[in-house]
């Protein structure tokens, strides 16, 4: 498979549109003929991140690189940042708004679930500067 790169801009203003980028990635991965399990893992991991981008930052940019080894998803925002990454990684911890909760999110499962569905995840964040989440989902193990 040739090396591929996709870039998605995520709009931070409209929660109803959150997930468009993940939907597009899922379609592209399907077309590449990757296994449904792998496609779903990547889609879930990115979708959780995309929801976070809209819920906590003012949108952001997602870069996805695909080669024969892995799907690498880099999600970068210039939002308010995460004060305590260790705490944010704990299941059940959430700072989501009431609006986000009413949509069925904000249960404090997003980051833990992203970690669960990726083979590698790294969160870099600085308060007032933004957050970058890097995830790798291995293709080689298939």
């Amino acid at each position, binding site marked *: 498979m040739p090396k591929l790169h996709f870039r998605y801009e995520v709009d931070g203003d409209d929660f109803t549109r959150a997930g468009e980028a993940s*939907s597009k990635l899922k379609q592209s991965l399907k077309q590449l003929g990757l296994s449904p399990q792998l496609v779903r893992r990547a889609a879930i991991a990115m979708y959780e991140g995309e929801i976070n981008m809209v819920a906590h930052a003012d949108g952001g940019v997602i870069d996805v690189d695909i080669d024969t080894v892995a799907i690498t998803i880099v999600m970068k925002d210039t939002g308010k940042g995460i004060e305590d990454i260790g705490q944010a990684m704990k299941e059940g911890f959430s700072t989501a708004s009431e609006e986000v909760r009413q949509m069925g*999110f904000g249960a404090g499962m997003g980051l833990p679930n992203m970690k669960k569905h990726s083979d590698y995840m790294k969160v870099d964040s600085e308060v007032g500067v933004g957050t970058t989440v890097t995830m790798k989902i291995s293709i080689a193990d298939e």
Partner: protein
Amino acid sequence: MTIGEIAKLINAEVLTGEGLLSKNVLTACGADLMSDVLAFIKNQSVLITGLTNAQTVRTSEMMDIVCIVIVRGKQPAAGMLELAEESGIAVLSTSYSMYTTCGILYDKGLSGGERILA
């Protein structure tokens, strides 16, 4: 069980996805918390829920869910049906409650399937 049979059993209105009624489904889940659907559900193809927003469809799309059943006769929020149609997901609406809807379908053989805990 087909999506059409589900609609019949719970006396549901088909809001979108007429073309999907003959599709066979084996398992279902009931949830109002999309976070839980994303974290714990595996291989279920029907989502029974009281939520009616676009993210319910997006979440279903990520999880390969092919049919959403809205309970308590709620009407979908703006944009939900269009998105479902685009994503190839059927949306049904029943006046039964979540509990009763799940009970009827479970009783008729639609199981909860495999559930993976974190």
